[in-house]
């Protein structure tokens, strides 16, 4: 399997998608929409980053297992 089939889509997805994610997170932080001193908002920050890494982990795991099954 080539790099085009395995890790390039992953890097592109979490690279370009990651830029959108970080830009959005930065924007809501800078504008005061997300307030780190609010207890409920603190939990949401964790949820937001958890979601990003959760999906990255699932995708990476399956790519790793697929490569390992050759």
């Amino acid at each position, binding site marked *: *399997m080539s790099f*085009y089939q395995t890790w390039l889509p992953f890097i592109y997805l979490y690279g370009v998608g990651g830029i959108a994610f970080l830009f959005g997170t930065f924007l809501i932080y800078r*504008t005061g929409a997300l307030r780190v001193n609010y207890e409920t908002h603190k939990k949401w920050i964790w949820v937001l980053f958890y*979601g990003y890494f959760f999906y990255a982990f699932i995708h990476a795991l399956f*790519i790793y297992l697929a490569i390992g099954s050759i």
Partner: protein
Amino acid sequence: MENILGTNLDRIVILAYFAVVMGFGAYFGKYSKTTSDYFFGGRRFAWWLITISIVATGIGSHSFVKYSTKAYQYGFSSTMTYMNDWFFMPLFLFGWLPIIYYLRLGSIPEYFERRFSREARYIATFMILMYMIGYIAIQFLTLATALYKIYGIPLMLTVVLIAIATTIYMHFGGQTSVIFTDLIQGFILIFAGLLLFSLGLSFLVENTSYSSGLKALWDNLSPLEKLPLANFNSPPDFNFVGIFWQDGIAGSIGFLFLNQGLIMRFMAARSVNEGRKAAAFNVLVILPISAIVVSNAGWIGKAISNSVPGALPIDLAPNDVFVAVANLITSPGVFGFIIAALCAALMSTSDTLVNASSSVIINDIYRPLTKNKSSDKEQLRLARLASVVVKVIAVCLVPFFNSFESIYEAHGWFHSTFTPPLVVGVFLGIFWKRFTSTAVIATFIGGAFLMILGQMYPTLISPFSHGIELRPGRGYSYIGALYNLFVCAGVGVLVTFFTKPVSENKLTGLTVFDVHKLKNIFKGSDVNESIGKPVVVHYKIKDLNEGMVSFSKEDMEITKSKKGDLVYIQDQRWWLGGLKSIHATFDEPHDEKGIVYINETQCDSGMFIKGLALKAEKEM
């Protein structure tokens, strides 16, 4: 007539399903008394109710067939489109959701008027209505295509019967019916999909030497079919980068920010935080499950093809894999139940879109034209009539979509034509204060023109192609979305720099930069952020001012509330999900601890039962 599929038992199961859903939906019609109830369910529901009903909205009748096909052809990468929606969640949860909720927007086009101009609203209304009605027509066509083979009824008659069936329960119920029928249908969809998966794994165990179905599935897929993401840029009809731009970017923004049906669902939540929970749970938990639900027939089909020769036809067309696998691994009656799940997908997606369309017709056409002079009762009657008209138009459009080479082509044409200008318009509107009214109209018109040029001359899209092959005579498929987004955004940005921006005062509350002020705007006074505890109370009827309720001094101390704060009161039974509840404002306190004074109208609206306790909590 072509081959008629299924047994009489299957047909009875499908008919029984329609009857149960219609009765269920009609029952909840009694909870729709105002246009607010009809469109937004009275903004009172718990997050879990919203989440499950979103499942049924997100999975259309075409999803099972479409994703099973891709799963059969390409394996686990069929799940890509269900697992790339997280990137815009920060902006949605803390940007767009508070804006639409706290501004009490009746529709997406209403935002365009408040942010830009009435002209922008009219163009947005036209585009959104066209998109939704077309989508409904495609849903009707998809299910009718499956059902007419089972019942042997002509296609168009099947379409009409489906339209009538969905009308019966929607007509009276509105959003409350939609939410509760979608709750049931969401469970049915997930259950049917997982049942099919389970039966498929059992079939593999019974017909191979494996003792574990999952192991049999894994070992009978090739390494390429186990990859969760498609090849970067080939083949042209299924590649990662094209699907990323069409679905992960344009699709995700379109779904989260512009899907009027979804937006109305979030506005039915009892608070912004409940809406956030619903959205996050949906994307984190429900979407991965949904990916399995809609794709597994394809994976099972591929594993069966590789491990049980002759079980499935050698020349099986990928499009037929869902029905073929369902037929092979289920018994009579169960097959009917699986097809009923297809019906559930159709009914739940189309009812949401029909309700959203009638909301747009009333909020964006009728009310502005009549200057909102008619009574709420009259508008409610017209909303119901509008939902019927929408379905009639959708039925009339079915032959047009039937003329496309495939349903997916029709669907893709709609998506690529109507979504990008709206996506760019709303996105720049929220996140760029300088973006002007002239620029958004130019985005709609100029962007659409350049998009059409791109369809006519695909070489214009080549610089964006990421190496994807240009198919002679067919152009580019998914990656066209990147070109469309680019030209629409380009027109919008360019025109903005040549036009004068409006003063910032006129944009208050309409961009992400003012989200922190929205609670004050919503409440009409300073927000009370002190954290109190909920109280359990019983009600007494008093003649209070409209929208006011009165608690005892002690209860107000526990909830940390003051006169003028907002309160949410619900039946104490959590499993009702807020169905029996009201929003109100704290009035002057009294001295009867554990008692809340409400008026007759509030009691009627909340459907409160004498003697049953209520739970009350301060909102802000």
